[in-house]
């Protein structure tokens, strides 16, 4: 019985200590950059399952046209959108403990209402290390004139 109590206390103490620790993975930036690449590919392939695993349930997303969207709206929009070519021209990550900020420029090329378009956008994505994995909690793209 005493042994069981000791184990319970140790487990509780261990959980408490671990909960207060920051993400021990020092290579957070490269993991997040890999997820950014996956995001681009998944968006292009309209793979909503892959996208769903990248986004946190409470994702805050602002589309290049200024629309504020939830996670489910982004997934629905991706499914319904016409094919688009997404090229990330540049991207950089900055780590703040369990949070990583990615900034970059992307090029969107597609056809809408039978008219071809080419857009450039500057994006900022916020990633959070949550329950053992990195998830995107916010994303915004601002249209750039070129």
């Amino acid at each position, binding site marked *: 019985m005493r042994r069981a109590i000791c184990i319970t206390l140790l487990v509780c103490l261990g959980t408490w200590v671990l909960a207060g620790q920051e993400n021990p993975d020092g290579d957070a930036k490269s993991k997040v950059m890999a997820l950014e690449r996956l995001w681009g590919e998944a968006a292009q392939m309209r793979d909503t399952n892959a996208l769903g695993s990248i986004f946190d349930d409470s994702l*805050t997303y602002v589309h290049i046209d200024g629309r504020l969207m939830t996670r489910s709206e982004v997934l629905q929009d991706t499914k319904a959108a016409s094919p688009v070519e997404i090229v990330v021209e540049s991207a950089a990550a900055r780590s703040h*403990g369990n949070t990583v900020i990615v900034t970059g420029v992307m090029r969107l090329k597609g056809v809408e209402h039978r008219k071809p378009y080419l857009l450039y956008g500057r994006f900022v994505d916020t990633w959070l290390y949550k329950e053992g994995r990195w998830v995107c909690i916010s994303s915004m793209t601002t249209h750039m004139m070129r």
Partner: protein
Amino acid sequence: MNECLTASVKAAWDRDKADMTARVAKFLCVMMLGAAAVHLVGQSADTSATRSRILALEHAWNQAEAFKDLKALDALFDNGLVYVDADGTLMTKAEFLSQVKSEHVQQIITELMTVQVFDNTAIVNGIYRSAEFKNGKPLTRRGRFIDTWVYKNSTWVCVAAQATPVVR
């Protein structure tokens, strides 16, 4: 006789010991449940307090920008701030502060704001309206923004801010 007495004393002592251990275990369980409940209540109170704190910082930002209070702005931003203006220009903290110094903003009003707290990170999204003078003419801008705040060195600092124009 003696042996029988010793055995019954030992049995009673064992019973007491088992009883005591069970009571200690019960006590520990109750204590742990209590601690967990206090932790959860504390967490929700913390989240609410953090939301209010972040909203206050957002308002302080608006005030400081309108009054060109660079010292106050400096304290609100992390040194690694990434700022994306509504036209897509990427700026560092120093560049943004320099822009604030030279711009002619009279007023910044936040129409809507939502704060989401994730432990040491908070996301704010909202709509702002700014009134300024450009080339001697009054100009009103309206935009949507997302700001990311991180709790660092016992204070909340903005690490990323971005805006995009909103069509009326």
